[in-house]
């Protein structure tokens, strides 16, 4: 980034750009990844300098990506609308969360090779209710795009085991390791190591007929 861009960014951060200049800088920030990353870095360091000594920590590196994914999910799939939402938490949630693990395990595993597909309508109507952002991501057209965040490294020698599917604490992010090799019973499966990918969200898609897949790591379900 050249010196002029640095100065312009700093001026924008301080609210010193007006009118067209401010608009142009906003446009550049939206379009230039390096500039946007510098924007984030500058704010992160500023926060740390001011608050780091007092025990406050910055948000995790993937936090903004998580928000982005949640908004994309909501916008593109038309789910999580207020009118359809039950309270995000409550006594019912604890009970349904337990059931949800089972329902989602069955549903998602059924998308994997050799297991046949569960109708999308069934997946969307799992007991997760409004909290099932992943499950509800499936639209009527049988296609969904969402983001998964890995939970932890996992190794399993039993491909049929439910250990193949990990669900994060809030049931909203699901990680299905071993998609590429699954379900070759002759192999031991090494799961996903978050450290290798900086813990970032993985763009993931579900398509009727192809199943669940991540363009980054997985072959589409149905292929070895």
């Amino acid at each position, binding site marked *: 980034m050249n010196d002029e861009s640095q100065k312009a960014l700093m001026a924008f951060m301080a609210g010193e750009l007006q009118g067209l200049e401010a608009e142009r800088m906003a446009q550049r920030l939206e379009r230039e990844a390096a500039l*946007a990353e510098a924007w984030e870095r500058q704010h992160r360091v500023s926060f740390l300098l001011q608050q780091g000594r007092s025990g406050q920590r910055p*948000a995790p590196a993937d936090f903004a990506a998580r928000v982005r994914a949640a908004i994309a999910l909501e916008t593109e799939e038309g789910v999580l609308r207020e009118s359809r939402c039950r309270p995000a938490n409550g006594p019912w949630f604890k009970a349904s969360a337990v059931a949800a693990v089972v329902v989602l395990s069955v549903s998602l595993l059924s998308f994997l090779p050799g297991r046949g597909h569960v109708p999308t309508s069934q997946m969307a109507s799992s007991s997760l209710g409004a909290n099932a952002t992943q499950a509800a991501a499936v639209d009527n057209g049988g296609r969904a795009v969402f983001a998964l965040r890995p939970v932890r490294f996992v190794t399993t020698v039993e491909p049929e085991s439910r250990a193949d599917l990990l669900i994060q604490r809030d049931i909203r992010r699901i990680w299905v390791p071993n998609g590429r090799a699954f379900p070759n019973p002759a192999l031991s499966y090494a799961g996903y190591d978050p450290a290798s990918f900086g813990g970032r969200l993985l763009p993931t898609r579900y398509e009727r007929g192809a199943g669940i897949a991540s363009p980054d790591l997985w072959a589409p379900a149905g292929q070895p």
Partner: protein
Amino acid sequence: MTEKTGRGESVGQDAGAQSDLVLVRRVQKGEKAAFDLLVRKYQHRVLALVGRFVRNPEEAEDVAQEAFVKAYRALKNFRGDSAFYTWLYRIAVNTAKNHLVAQGRQVSIADVETEDAEQFASADGLREYDTPEGLLLTKEIAQHIDAALTALPEDLRIAVTLREFEGLSYDEIAQVMECPVGTVRSRIFRAREAIAKVLAPLLEQSDHER
């Protein structure tokens, strides 16, 4: 431009209110990427604010995420009567309170009004990290910050210190340092970039341990 508000001053809040408004207007016109910039800017303060109510760090992250999603939904109705960050903090506080109520938990800071949110976002000390590991990390972060500041060339160190710790505006720093304001901007940018490099490994480690 009003930037200085004392210790833990609001550089990047009041100071950037005008830029926030530019980004908000762009979101309202359909530029989703502009909202991402607002998230990237305010994620740390919103998470810190939510953390005052929701002590479990993982839970706090989820509540903070929900607050941003709610803000995105409601942004079409934001008219700019207040600063964006005030509005955002209000949403974050209400989301955190609702979260606790829905879980049948008592609101831990019962007398907090949403108007106080800004102060809480900048308040010292987050107790959820007061574990031995958390305290150790805090100490390490402080040491790295001090080391990074010490290693900076003097002109960069003075500029960033005046900005971050004294809350001076770029113009005021330019007067103190007797240099053009553009030079001040450049120095602060480079100082923060240098500090970011020093802190990056520690923050990565912190992320993995969350």
